[in-house]
C-alpha cells in the first residue's frame, strides 16, 4: 500500500535526507529545551531540542531561535519534524506561545497527511510540549502557576489501556478531547492506541468506552464509522422498478452470458437480486471449475456492469 504524500511532505523529507542547508536534522548541544516522544519499540521516536535568546529579566519572554530534531521514523515522521522546526523558527515563538502549536498546524504546513500518518504530526507536537516543559524546569519557570496543565500524573498513575503502545487512560482521554477523535480508527491513526493486537478496542474500559465517556455516547451519532455502515442500501436505480431491473439483468444473462457459458458446458443461475447485488451460482461444468469465482467476477459481473448498471456487484452463492 503506498501512502499518498503531498509534494510538500516529499520535498521536506528529501531536503532533510540530503542535508540541504536550512534543514534541521541534528541535536543542539547544551540546548535550552529538550523533549522526546515515542520509542523504537513503538515504531517511531523523536528527540527535539531548541535554543532560545534569553530575556534578561523575564524567562517567559525568551524567544526560540533555533530548533533541531533527531527522528527515527517514516517519511512523514521526518517531514513532520522538519515542519515543526520550520514553523517554530519562523514564528518568533516564546516557549509558552509555542505550546499553542498543534499537530493540525503541522498537518496544514505539510499540505495534509494521510489518515494513517496523523500520528507523525502528533509526535511532533508531543515532543515540542516535552521540550517546553524541560525548558521551564531549566529556567525555573513554574508552568502550573501560569495555568498550564503538565499532565504529569498521567503516565505514572494512569491505568494502562493500550499495552502494545503503553498508553494510559488519562492520556488517551485527553487526546480524544484535544484532537476531537470520534472513532477507534481515528484514535489509532492519531496516537496509535489500539493499533497493535486490537484487544483493547471493545473490552470494558477499552477504547470504545473511553470514547463513550468523553463524548457521552455521542461519538457514534457524529460519525459514520463507529456505527456499523449500513448494507449497500442502494436500491435498484431510480429509473427502473426492482422488477424491471431484475428483468434487465435476466435479459443480459439469457442473451449474452448464458450462451457464452454453455459453449463451455456450463451455466449460471441467479439466486437473488438485492439492491444492486446479484447473487449467482455457477452450474454444470462451471460449478467444478477451479476458476469459477474468476468467471463470475470477470465475465458475469463485467457484462452486467457494462450492459445494465456500473454499480452491480456479483456474489457467488
Amino acid at each position, binding site marked *: 500500500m503506498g501512502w499518498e504524500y503531498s509534494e510538500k511532505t516529499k520535498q521536506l523529507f528529501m531536503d532533510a535526507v540530503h542535508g540541504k542547508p536550512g534543514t534541521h536534522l541534528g541535536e543542539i548541544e547544551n540546548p535550552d529545551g529538550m523533549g522526546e516522544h515515542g520509542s523504537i519499540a513503538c515504531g517511531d521516536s523523536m528527540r527535539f531540542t531548541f535554543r532560545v535568546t534569553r530575556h534578561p529579566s523575564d524567562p517567559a519572554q525568551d524567544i526560540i531561535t533555533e530548533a533541531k530534531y533527531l527522528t527515527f521514523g517514516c517519511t512523514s515522521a521526518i517531514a513532520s519534524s522538519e515542519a515543526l522546526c520550520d514553523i517554530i523558527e519562523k514564528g518568533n515563538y516564546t516557549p509558552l506561545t509555542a505550546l499553542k502549536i498543534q499537530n493540525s498546524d503541522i498537518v496544514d504546513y505539510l499540505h495534509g497527511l494521510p489518515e494513517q500518518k496523523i500520528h507523525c504530526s502528533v509526535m511532533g507536537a508531543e515532543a515540542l510540549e516535552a521540550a517546553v516543559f524541560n525548558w521551564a524546569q531549566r529556567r525555573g519557570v513554574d508552568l502550573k502557576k501560569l495555568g498550564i496543565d503538565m499532565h504529569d500524573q498521567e503516565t505514572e498513575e494512569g491505568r494502562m489501556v493500550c*499495552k502494545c503502545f503503553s498508553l494510559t487512560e488519562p492520556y488517551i482521554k485527553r487526546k480524544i478531547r484535544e484532537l476531537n477523535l470520534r472513532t477507534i480508527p481515528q484514535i489509532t491513526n492519531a496516537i496509535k492506541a489500539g493499533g497493535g*493486537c486490537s484487544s483493547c*478496542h471493545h473490552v470494558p474500559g477499552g477504547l470504545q468506552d473511553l470514547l463513550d465517556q468523553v463524548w457521552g455516547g455521542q461519538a457514534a451519532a457524529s460519525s459514520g464509522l463507529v456505527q456499523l455502515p449500513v448494507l449497500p442500501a442502494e436500491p435498484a436505480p431510480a429509473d427502473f422498478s426492482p422488477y424491471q431491473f431484475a428483468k434487465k439483468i435476466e435479459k443480459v444473462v439469457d442473451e449474452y452470458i448464458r450462451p457464452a457459458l454453455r459453449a463451455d458446458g456450463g451455466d449460471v443461475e441467479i439466486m437473488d437480486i438485492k439492491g444492486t447485488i446479484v447473487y449467482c451460482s455457477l452450474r454444470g461444468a462451471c460449478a467444478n471449475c477451479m476458476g469459477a469465482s474468476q468467471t463470475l467476477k470477470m465475465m458475469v459481473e463485467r457484462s452486467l456492469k457494462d450492459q445494465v448498471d456500473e454499480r452491480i456487484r456479483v456474489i457467488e*452463492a
Partner: protein
Amino acid sequence: MSKFMKIIYLDNNATTQTAPEVFESMVPYFTEQYFNPSSMYEPARQTGQAVTAARRKIADCLGHVDPKEILFTGCATESNNTAILGAAHANPNRRHVITTTVEHPAVMEVCRELERNGCKVTYLGVDRDGKLDVREFIRALTPETLLVSIMHANNETGVIFPIDQLSRITKQTDPSIIFHTDATQTVGKLPIDLALGLPYVDLMSFSGHKLHAPKGVGVLFIRRGTRCRPYMLGGHQEDGRRAGTENVPYIIGIAKALELAMEHREQDEAKIERLRTRLENALVQKIASVQVNGKGAPRLANTLNISFHYIEGEGMLFQLSGYGICASSGSACTSGSLEPSHVLRAMKVPFTAVHGSVRFSLSRYNTEEDVDTVIEVFPQIVANLRKLSPYWDNERNTPRADALSLVQQTQT
C-alpha cells in the same frame, strides 16, 4: 447393567472419554506446576509459558491463526454466550440476528434472549435432509443484520452446513455483519483452517470434551478486529476479554487433545466412517420401517441418527443399556423436557419416527466388535417394543394399516 459389564460407548456427540495422553499431559499442572500463571516468580512464569504454548498450538491447529485470536473459556456454551451477547452488546446500532431452527440450545436460547430484549431474529428452517436453503439465507440478510450464528455440524444428526459458503456470502454482502459458528461437533473431526478455508468466519466456538479433552474447558476464536464485548469481567486474563484465573491443566489438555485429533484425523475418520456405515447398513437391512435422518446431506462420519417408526426411543435406550451400550435419543422422554427433538421436528421427521430416534455417535476408541454387538442385539430390541406398540402389525411386521389415523387421533 452389571458393574463388570464392558461399556460400549456410542454417545460421543454428548461427551468423549479423555484420551490417556491428554490426561497424562495435564497431571503435572495439578501436582507440580500448580502456580497462577499471572504470578511473578519463576515457577509461575513457566506455568504461564505453558499456557502460551498451548494457545499457540491451538492457533496452529486451526490454520496458523494468531494466538491472540484464541480465547479460553469454560465450555462451548460459554463461548457461544460470549460470542452472541458480546457481538450484540458491541453493536447496538443493529438489531437483527440470523440463526437456524436446529441450533444447539446454547445458541438458540441466547438468540431467544436477544429477541426478548428487542432484537429481531430470523430462524432459518431446514429441509427433510436437514439442509439449509441458500436462497432463503440470502433473503434473510438485511441492512439491519448484526450477526449470523450458524452451527458447523448438527449435534443430533451430524449434518454439516456449508459454513465456508454462508460466511463468504455474508461478508461479501456486508463486511460489517459478524459471522459466528458453533463448531463444537466439528473441531477435531473436520479439517478447519480459519486462515485459508474459513477466512470469513469471525467467531468460532468449541469445547474440549467433544474431542477427548475433559469437560470444563472451551475455546472462542475471535478474529482480530471483530467487535465483540466480553461479559466475564474482573481480571486482566485473556487480555481482559475473559476474566478469571486460567484453568491451566485443562488448557494444556485441550491443546494436547486437538493436537492428537489433527495428527490422526484422516485415519480416524476413515475407520469411524467404516464402522458407522457397517452399523447403518446392517440396521437398515435387518429392521423394517427405518429411516436414517440426515442421510441426504453431507454428514459427520461418526454420527448415525436413525428412527424406528412406531416405537419410543427411551425403551430402546433402556434395553441397550442392559447390554452396556450407551447411546441417546431424540425422544421426549430422554430430553429432560416433554418436547421431542427440535432438530428432527425441524426436518419434518414424522411424529411416529421422532420419538423412535436413536443417535449413535462414534469415536476413535470404538471397535468393529462394538458395532457388531449393536447389530446383534438391536433387531430384537426393536421387535420387543413393536410387539407392544398399538400401531404395529406384528404378523406382517409392518405398521398397522390404520396406524397413521390412530396416531392422528391421539394427537388431537
